[in-house]
């Protein structure tokens, strides 16, 4: 009966009330920011005295901000591609391989996801100081690759485990070499997993803050780093504009993901 909503009695009002409050709690701050991005107050008075778009024009005319958007996007795209590729190979090894320590290896691959990022950031920063990779594009890509890889592996391993290997065997029997069978039959069949891996890797890199702070240089700043360093000094409404753009992208992504899930045949 505790799981039957209609029979909860007074508890029903309590649960619903809390749910509404928490929903509002989660939603309102973001809405406030979106509204403030259109407000004219430099000091983020709420409600704003009047409405304006000039924070957005400031934002889109500022070469530094645009450069950061571009940098983040470029790094994230490269990371998405490479992580998916490496993740695909690793997943084949993890799901099909027969060797001792396979499960341990799987746990090792997951480690970057479960440890405190700042520890990894600091450690990698030290290494990159030696290799002079700090502030370089490739350094960023490598750092984000380590972070994104577990997401790619999880997504692709799931897809591979749900795939019936005898279909691949049938392709081999039909005359395809093992590699050809994978390319022509297995990969198309797991494309949802590959897609998921790319998307999650992209997002992992795009949103990543801590490692990026250490990797950045004055010339090479990802978007989160620029936001962070601006925020350390002042609460400019331009950040509100940036935030709104990011929120809009998130909503877009959620809508696309929902479409995909609904449009897929069972």
């Amino acid at each position: 009966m505790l799981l039957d909503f209609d029979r909860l009695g007074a508890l029903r009002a309590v649960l619903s009330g809390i749910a509404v409050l928490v929903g509002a709690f989660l939603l309102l701050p973001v809405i406030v920011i979106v509204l403030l991005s259109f407000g004219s107050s430099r000091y983020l008075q709420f409600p704003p005295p009047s409405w304006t778009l000039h924070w957005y024009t400031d934002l889109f005319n500022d070469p530094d901000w645009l450069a950061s958007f571009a940098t983040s996007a470029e790094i994230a795209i490269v990371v998405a591609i490479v992580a998916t590729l490496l993740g695909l190979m690793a997943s084949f090894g993890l799901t099909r391989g027969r060797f001792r320590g396979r499960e341990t290896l799987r746990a090792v691959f997951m480690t970057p996801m479960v440890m405190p990022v700042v520890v990894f950031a600091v450690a990698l920063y030290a290494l990159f100081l030696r290799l002079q990779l700090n502030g370089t594009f490739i350094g960023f890509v490598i750092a984000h690759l380590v972070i994104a890889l577990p997401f790619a592996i999880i997504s692709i391993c799931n897809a591979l485990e749900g795939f019936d290997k005898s279909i691949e065997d049938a392709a081999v029997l039909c005359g395809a070499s093992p590699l050809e069978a994978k390319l022509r039959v297995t990969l198309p069949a797991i494309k949802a997993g590959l897609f998921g891996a790319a998307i999650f890797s992209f997002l992992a890199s795009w949103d990543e803050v801590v490692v990026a702070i250490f990797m950045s240089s004055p010339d090479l700043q990802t978007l989160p780093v620029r936001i962070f360093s601006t925020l350390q000094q002042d609460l400019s409404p331009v950040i509100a504009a940036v935030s709104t753009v990011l929120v809009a992208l998130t909503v877009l992504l959620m809508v696309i993901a929902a479409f995909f899930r609904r449009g897929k045949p069972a």
Partner: protein
Amino acid sequence: MSTTAMAFPGNRAVTRRPRRVSGFWPTSPALALLIVFFVAPLLGLLLRSVLDPHPGLQNYAEVFASTTYLRIFMNTFIVATVVTTATLLLAFPVAWFLAVAPRRWASLLFAVIILSMWTNLLTRTYAWMVLLQRTGIINKTLMSWGVIAAPLPLINNLIGVTIGMTYIMLPFMVLPLQGTIRSLDPATFRAASLCGAGRLQVFTRVFVPLVASGIGAGVLMVFVMSLGYFVTPALLGGTSNMMLAELIAQLVQSLLNWGLAGAAALILLVVSLGIYAIQFRFFGIRAAGEVE
């Protein structure tokens, strides 16, 4: 791969093939990446913590002896505990609601939670920076209602940090919890009430034990994340009450004290992995990584 004997027609020949360790090599590029750029740097950090500036454990001694550092550990621990508790208290009813409410409302709330979780961390932290300012909405509203006379210091201290982190961690606690509750079989509860248990008893003796693993997983995950969190405490907290992650960053960036930074980082790492190890031992590997 080679054969060591030929088969002749009509003969029962022995054809032996060497056993292969099959399927390991595709993992090698990813593994190489991890070893060079993940494991090696961590080992390097460990080494620095015991070699820099002189070989020995002085860095660790210094960390544990200094009142400043101990206070930072305390702050971090307390904030993590408060955040975890607050998150749990809020997340449990919400997860329960999500699991039992009619689909329309549940889906709506679910979408709000997912949106919150996917919204950029900095955006969410910024929102609270704006709201909690001295001249921000919260203070203004409270003052205009006459609840307070002067603006409350809600930012640049651990209160702001706690509020901000609870906000951010909430979805991470709600999602696994609602999954656990949803997987419960209502028949179990009906059976319990048929056996004579009253509402409260069903709650304490059936409901809570059954969701215990989901609660345990969520609690441990939020706690560990809070211990190592950097961004929100750095932005919402003040310099006088730093938390551990910011200390490590400062030791490296401003003070260039690699030995101490390494020691502090290793302590954080060991505690985090230790807690996960406990969770793995008691709850299995399900929970680690069940974020998406």
